[in-house]
């Protein structure tokens, strides 16, 4: 079981309020991702749940009982840290055994859990090595192993993939998602990378300056962002946000259109512009187009074989059904 509920949780450091009162429910077995730009309070929020920081106000309930004043170890949560926080002087086996040793579990039970965790995480051959002798990905797996053996009510991940290189990150992303499917335990995952959030989450919580901007499934957030911030944050490359007369023509203060929802043509279209920088990815090409009357260049996605170059004239047609409209406060107009 791992149902976590935050009720009017508030956190301040001295006079600075990092997280104004906030409510959030995390269902049992859910994979929840906190995502937001750096300094938005997502890590603080995770540490509040873990018990590594005290709440200034409000309650944290785990499985229906109040855990606000409980020390971290009593909350039944396990955490994987950004730096992995492995104990450098202990072998992998001892690292994984540490929480069980602290809980004074019988030796046979410890060994059984270590074996099964090592098997699940492909660590069997490395059990007697020190963390210093392992690669980044292996260390990451040891950290996860140390969390698994406690059989926690929920796992907390604090930007666990940010120290890995791009290729490993994709691999670990899959492994963590698979682990979640297999264990069916609640996972709370903090990241600044919206791709990680989109690919892994059941539910995404978008945070900015300690405030929850939107909560929803990845596709909800992609299709109906509640405000300009979420619209710009979710999706890669970013949604184009256009202000001025063009937005007014669509009865909005700001109109948003994703790069993938614009049709590119070299003959005719709604907007005329000149091609700036183009990024060729093979499968796709992203053009940065300067359109007359728009403040900023627009990013559009085209097929990999579109033959347009710097300075060429380009015609763009946004898909009218997929235009997002926002009012002057940045909120979505339904």
């Amino acid at each position, binding site marked *: 079981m791992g149902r976590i509920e935050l009720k009017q949780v508030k956190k301040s450091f001295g006079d600075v309020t990092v997280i104004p009162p906030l409510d959030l429910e995390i269902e049992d077995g859910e994979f929840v991702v906190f995502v937001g730009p750096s300094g938005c309070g997502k890590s603080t929020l995770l540490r509040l749940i*873990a018990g590594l920081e005290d709440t200034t106000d409000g309650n944290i309930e785990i499985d229906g009982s109040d855990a606000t004043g409980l020390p971290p170890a009593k909350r039944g949560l396990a955490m994987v840290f950004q730096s992995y926080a492995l*104990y450098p002087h202990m072998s992998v086996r001892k690292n994984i055994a540490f929480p069980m040793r602290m809980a004074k579990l019988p030796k046979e039970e410890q060994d059984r859990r270590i074996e099964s965790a090592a098997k699940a995480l492909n660590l069997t051959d490395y059990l007697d090595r020190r963390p210093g002798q392992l690669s980044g990905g292996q260390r990451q797996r040891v950290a996860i192993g140390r969390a698994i053996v406690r059989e926690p009510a929920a796992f907390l991940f604090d930007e666990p993939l940010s120290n890995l290189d791009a290729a490993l990150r994709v691999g670990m992303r899959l492994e963590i998602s698979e682990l979640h499917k297999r264990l069916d335990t609640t996972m709370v995952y903090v990241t600044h990378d919206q791709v990680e959030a989109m690919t892994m989450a059941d539910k995404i919580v978008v945070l900015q300056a300690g405030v929850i901007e939107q909560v929803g499934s990845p596709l909800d957030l992609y299709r109906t962002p509640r405000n300009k911030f979420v619209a710009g944050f979710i999706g890669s490359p970013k949604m184009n946000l256009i202000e001025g007369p063009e937005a007014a023509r669509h009865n909005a203060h700001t109109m948003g259109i994703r790069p993938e929802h614009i049709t590119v043509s070299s003959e005719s279209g709604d907007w005329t512009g000149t091609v700036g920088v183009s990024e060729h990815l093979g499968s796709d090409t992203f053009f940065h187009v300067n359109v007359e009357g728009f403040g900023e260049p627009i990013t559009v996605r085209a097929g990999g074989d579109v033959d347009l170059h710097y300075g060429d004239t380009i015609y763009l047609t946004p898909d009218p059904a997929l235009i997002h409209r926002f009012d002057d406060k940045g909120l979505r107009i339904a």
Partner: protein
Amino acid sequence: MATQQSRSAARLMMAPAVVLLLGWMLVPLIMTLYFSFRRYLPNRPDIEPGWVGFENYARFIGSSSFWPAVQTTLIIVGGVLVITVVLGIILALLLDQPMWGQGAVRILVIAPFFVMPTVSALVWKNMFMDPVNGILAHLWKFFGATPVQWLSQASLESIIMIVSWQWLPFATLILLTAVQSLDSEQLEAAEMDGASYLNRFWFIILPHLARAVTIVILIQTIFLLSIFAEIFVTTGGAFGTRTLTYLIFQRVLESQNIGLGSAGGVYAIILANIVAIFLMRIVGKNLDA
């Protein structure tokens, strides 16, 4: 990294310093070695100076004061090491806590290290341990006890106390930097794993400090083997406080037996170098990593 040219230029420019230091070290060393094989008592014109081979070495070890002196040395060095390392770790952990006036407190803690050994020994002897006027005597009297005659009744303990007071700042400082270099996420991870503060200290902090503790022990050992002022000023080697260093001093200056004292000096050099080899290895390993 360096080119051939910059390497030879570096050698050339370092040469004066190296030659000077080498001479500085070699001249006394060779003189000590030379005297250690001589019979040389400048105050006894009746005894002819001359070569005696290893006689001085044999006599130095064979003397009835040698083994007690070794024992005294070991007790002082060991005692000071235990006190400074244990208190050093405790102080380092305390100083690592955020508190008001942290900077001032840290400077105060380091202060004893800047007091000259002679001065600090005199201060301890006259202001603290004096059986009539010392603060400790007043304290004892305040509680109705008979003041302890520190330097005669508990002479070894007193000297250990004085020297520990001098070296505690050094240990604290090195251990404090080691404590501060510990990744806080490791402690938090241990906290999540259910480790109590004592467990965290025992399983995480102490192993992390292991290397710093070794360095403190080795550096202090080298310096503690040669403590002299503290003994000279307080007991003058009486009441069982004659260390190896002090014995050498007595042989050379009080008995005016320069050959015998030099032989003792060579023993001391060998002893200090054994410790130094271990120290170099550990420090070297640290620099490589």
